[in-house]
């Protein structure tokens, strides 16, 4: 399976319902942009989807979830800890194998920061940290990408480069975005969220930027 069909998604916070109940079905090959005002429930929706499809998804959460004391390499390598034995993982923590190093370096090169491979993530800038979290999701290589504002700290050209990479590597994805132009350019389906409900669900070819602006 690499698409999903979820129904009865709800979330409450302090007794107040913030999401749903709603249903969302994503087929293989659909690249979904979640758009809507901040506070509309996009992050909560991503989290709910992740809880349901954990095993099949690569997640880029808004707060990134990096281990600050570890270098870039290890933060990225963490995406495949399940693929190796415990011994292999412990040895990698101490001294990574050259094959793994090359793979991760290749990935970081595509994200424009190959030279930072051995720096602890605590010493990186916001945009660099965001790219490390994206690299971890790419390295995990799950069938579905779930990303919450993955390019919020990246400048123009880098944002396009990263979105291009995500589009190329993940056939199926759900990405929360606040940049409408980017959403239209890199996703083939737009889902608009307002007050915890889906109020817009359309293929991006049939939408223009002004159709979406009404959500804001």
């Amino acid at each position, binding site marked *: 399976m690499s698409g999903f069909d979820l129904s009865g998604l709800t979330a409450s916070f302090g007794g107040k319902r913030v999401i749903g109940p709603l249903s969302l079905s994503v087929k293989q090959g659909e690249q979904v942009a979640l758009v809507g005002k901040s506070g509309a429930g996009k992050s909560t929706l991503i989290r709910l989807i992740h809880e349901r499809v*954990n*095993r099949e998804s690569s*997640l880029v*959460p808004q*707060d990134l*979830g*990096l*281990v*600050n*004391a*570890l270098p870039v390499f*290890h933060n990225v390598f*963490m*995406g*495949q*800890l*399940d*693929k*190796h*034995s*415990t011994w292999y*993982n*412990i040895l990698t*923590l101490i001294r990574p194998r050259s094959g793994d190093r090359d793979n991760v370096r290749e990935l970081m090169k595509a994200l424009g920061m190959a030279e930072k491979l051995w720096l602890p993530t605590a010493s990186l800038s916001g945009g660099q940290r965001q790219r490390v979290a994206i690299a*971890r999701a790419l390295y*995990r290589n*799950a069938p579905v990408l779930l990303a919450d504002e993955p390019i919020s700290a990246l400048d123009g050209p880098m944002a396009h480069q990263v979105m291009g990479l995500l589009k190329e590597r993940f056939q199926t994805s759900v990405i929360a975005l606040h940049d409408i132009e980017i959403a239209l350019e890199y996703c083939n389906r737009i889902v608009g969220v307002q007050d915890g409900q889906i109020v817009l669900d359309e293929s991006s070819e049939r939408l223009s930027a002004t159709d979406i602006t009404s959500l804001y």
Partner: protein
Amino acid sequence: MLSSQTVRISLVFVAVALVSLLFADIAITASNPWRDLGNFFLGVVTPNFFSSEGLMTALLRTVAFAFVGVALGSVCGFILSLVYRFLPVRIFCAFVRAIHELFWALIFLQFFGFHPLTGVLAIAIPYSGIFAKVYSEILDETDPEPGRLLPPGTGVIAAFLYTRIPDCWVQLRTYTAYRLECGLRSSAILGFVGLPTLGFYLESSFSQGLYSDAGAMLILFYVLIATMPLWVRPKLLPVYILGAPFFLGEGLPIVWGNVERFFTEDIVPSPLRDGEGLSGMIPWLSDLMVNEAMPGIWNTVILTQIALVVTGILTLLAFPLISNHFGGPVRRTTGHVFLVIVRSTPEYILAYILLQLWGPSMLPAVVALALHNGGIIGHLIGRQTNSIHLRPDAPTGFNRYSWELVPRVYRSFLAFLFYRWEIIMRETAILGILGIYTLGFFVDSAIQNIRFDRAMVLILITALLNIGVDALGRYIRRRLALQTMPTC
């Protein structure tokens, strides 16, 4: 002012201390205390480093026992910290750390004798309990998010090593290094029960009136602790830890028959041993309670309460010594040296010295406890005031102290004081070995009289008393919403 909760609780404690003072035995009984004190200080300023080879050996042994004990304690403590969420583990750890190193040493001496294992275990066991608690607190504070993001199916060990340990590695290392300093102090005082460390050397120098030798020992001990950042290096640690066991000395061999007898006969309550059965237990226990436990508890509590308040007063007097908000660099340097000296000297050694000079009463114990603990808290609070930025036109001198600084640091001052309450009580109990009538005195006498059954009951009571005070201290800190970092 009285409406403030922190002020009210402080006044309650001051009142309790004043009442305790009525019952306390505070006196200077030596015939010429000031001359003795003068001689002692003369000894410190004319140290004799070359009187015998004994000094260097004692120093080496002190370091070796500290390293082996703390290393073993930290490994065991780390393993325990992984299962610390289970109540039986918590209770076990609270119990082993409530018993002072010297009590553990006294217990092990009875069956291992003067074997190095006695000293190593006396440090390692209580330290395991402390490490387990603090390590688990540190581990609990790591960011759980990276762990949640790992691919499902990641092994528990790999997840732990990748997402938990790196996040708190610095805190674990800092705390362990800090404990090593505590371990050096613990190791030094083990000499007072006969192990070959600095305490033994100090006691023999004092008993012969060789104040210059004692002064040399104290100075070397301060240098050892003050230079720790220079010689305790991550790269050298494996060398120290692997090498230390070879410098513990030979000691005397373990007689395994003694070990067996200790557990099967010595610590069995005498009525049971003599076949009087349970009916004999009641008079035995009540005699123990009335004649030893109750007076011991009473004196321990009184002395603790007085020492706690004097520690507080001393802290408030001492912290301006190193605060940037007053005076010049000369005063601050002197202040730092003074605070380093009083906090590096184990309270047991301070109490021992003062007791030799002033004669037996509670006074030397109060002064020793207050100096040592006041030095530690004063240092921490003084450093804290250095991060406070006052408005440019803030008052100076005593007004600055009383209006600007004390109100700002008072809560953390109380937090540290209540944190150390249990530590002060543990030390108070142990100072009994020096001849003050706290619980340690009765434990020590029971051991001298080869009544280990009684000694064990008294140690158990001491541990329970410490656990009780620890719980009360934590309750008060929680009620007043006071937070603190662990200190030893």
